[in-house]
């Protein structure tokens, strides 16, 4: 009896969130999947079963072998940018979180310093990205500075509108999403464990590998999920920082939407969702977040 009652209350508690989730996430998603199988013309969707959105997307993938077709090339590029961003934000984010959790003793300073990490978010995304131009551009601060110092003669063009600038902007934006969850996991680590390791003669590096990293894993995975899902779907940053010359999965969807080809856009969205789910589920295989939380 009590058990039934408890589970009923639990459902009740989860109810509102579940309703919101179903109405504003699951249902729209179902519509996207349905629409992705429809046909379309210049100005409207035709509710007839057609997998044109999918077949068009993979057009030439077999015929062009061993060359990659558009969609595979695009995903290869997106995944590459995603991996670079993930690896760099993880390294930097982990280091910052470690510093905040173990080297900053006072709560106040921990809060102040974490707030400092949010500075990149004080301006709008577009302004932040446009601001890179005077810094990295052909006549920008860095190139001019290096030329004035006599270190280079010709401006380095790869600084802007390149994969370098895209990854730089991503790292600048998303390191914070790594810092917060990792920091959160780290402050829960019992200091006694670290002391015990020290007493048992472990070096700092051994403590890091055997104590800190395993215990900070949930934070690492959550941070990774944030960064990977955002970067996989991004088209704004890649567009602006890549000079619109670098393809991304999100960009394909945007172009299709703008051409009013909703089913084709939906098909691409479903493909993107599928690939992202595969990556995320691989990550969660490594760590059972539920158990660790």
């Amino acid at each position, binding site marked *: 009896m009590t058990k039934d009652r408890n589970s009923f209350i639990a459902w009740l508690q989860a109810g509102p969130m579940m309703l919101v989730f179903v109405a504003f996430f699951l249902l729209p998603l179902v519509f996207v999947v349905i629409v992705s199988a429809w046909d379309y013309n210049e100005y409207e969707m035709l509710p007839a079963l057609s997998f044109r959105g999918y077949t068009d997307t993979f057009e030439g993938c077999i015929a062009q072998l061993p060359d990659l077709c558009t969609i595979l090339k695009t995903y290869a590029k997106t995944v590459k940018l995603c991996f670079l961003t993930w690896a760099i934000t993880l390294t930097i984010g982990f280091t910052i979180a470690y510093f905040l959790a173990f080297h900053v003793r006072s709560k106040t300073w921990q809060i102040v310093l974490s707030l400092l990490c949010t500075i990149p978010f004080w301006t709008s995304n577009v302004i932040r990205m446009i601001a890179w131009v005077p810094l990295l551009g052909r006549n920008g601060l860095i190139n001019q500075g290096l030329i004035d110092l006599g270190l280079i003669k010709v401006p380095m063009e790869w600084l802007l*509108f390149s994969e370098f600038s895209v990854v730089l902007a991503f790292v600048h934006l998303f390191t914070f999403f790594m810092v917060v969850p990792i920091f959160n996991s780290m402050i829960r680590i019992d200091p006694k464990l670290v002391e015990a390791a020290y007493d048992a003669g472990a070096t700092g590096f051994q403590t890091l590998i055997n104590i800190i990293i395993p215990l900070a894993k949930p934070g690492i995975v959550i941070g990774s999920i944030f960064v990977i899902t955002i970067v996989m779907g991004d088209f704004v940053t890649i567009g602006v920082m890549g*000079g619109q010359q670098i393809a991304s999965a999100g960009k*394909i969807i945007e*172009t299709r*939407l703008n051409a009013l080809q909703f089913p084709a856009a939906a098909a691409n969205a479903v493909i993107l969702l599928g690939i992202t789910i595969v990556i995320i589920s691989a990550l969660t295989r490594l760590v059972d977040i539920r158990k660790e939380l």
Partner: protein
Amino acid sequence: MTDSVKLDAKVSRRSLLKGAAGIAGLAAGSGVITGFPYVKSAEPKVLRYLGTGVNEGDLIGQQCFKDTGIKIEYISATTDDVTKRVVTQPNSFDVLDTEYFSLKKLVPSGNILGLEAKKIKEFNNITPVFTKGQLPNGKKIGDQGTAPWKVLYLEGANSKNFSKTATDYVTLIPTVYNADTLGIRPDLIKRPISSWAELLNPEFKGKASILNIPSIGIMDAAMVIEATGQHKYADKGNMTKEEIDLTMKILTEAKKAGQFRAFWKDFNESVNLMASGETVIQSMWSPAVTKVRSMGIPCTFQPLKEGYRSWASGFCISKATTGPKLEWAYEFVNWFLSGWAGGYLNRQGYYSAVLSTAKANMTEDEWGYWMEGKAAKSDIKAPDGSLLEKAGAVRDGGSYEDRMGSVACWNAVMDENDYMVRKWNEFIAA
């Protein structure tokens, strides 16, 4: 986020406010709710105006309110988002400000009202550029692409088909148009530029840019390819699949060779690229050139021997607009063509659809500079009073006849649009 996202946010905030106001209104007048809440005559005349921002401006809205008592609520979005909204939410606007090339998508959707020509006072004074495809002096102009006169008339009030001959039902009442070309930095190029072919000239490797809006970008590319003599298109605005393949192949080769510094998509990006010197030659819009120049940086909207790519926009009315609102919409369109707005747009470097009324609202010197290609006698100012050109300046490209007379093609939606968009994605990924 992007402009479009920002604008969407603005829109939804506005509609939210409107919703709130509606609820407040209902509460105030509770008891007399008889079905559909309709605007009573005592209430202010309000029209919802959906558009891209070219014709918009607080000054226009204020002047319109002063002259007609009609209050304009602007809903701004990018060209693509405007089209999306018309097709998916025809009830969300009354007056639509859009371009002729979009009509190929909008009219078949059945959401656009056929306007009665006889209700438009100045209809017969609209420049023959729109009605006959010729200048006032009789010179024929280029008809490649979705030229306005091909899609100006409907077969009937509720027809979804364009009429080849003049009828009483008009799809879109023209308001503003211009001839686009390449913008260049004369101080960095240091030699005359006279052909579209220069865009792919290896001399400007890593310093060129084109527009990343597929339907327009591919036409600029076609202008270039024709200029280099690699192919002659039957209609640059309506390519065959083979022509699309060829165009994209040449563009892709140029991209791989590093010809382009970046592609641009919105107005500010194009200004930024040019002003910072990242690019020295690129497709551009007239007000963007003006903006760069107003920053004190030399920039020319370079006339080229192959001609201009032109565009034109104007007003449609939603089929969902009926009753008194429909009358106000006609009143608004008539006001727009009556001269004040025309003068305002002409002073920004665009062209007004009814030239005679615009002329009456400009000084002789302004008319001479903007329309006749004459040297300015005194300083030329923007509508907001800021200095655009010093006395003695001559407009790039010269007079109205010189510029509009050299139009080679019009912004277009191709029959093979779906194929083209796919190829464009392939080009970006290459």
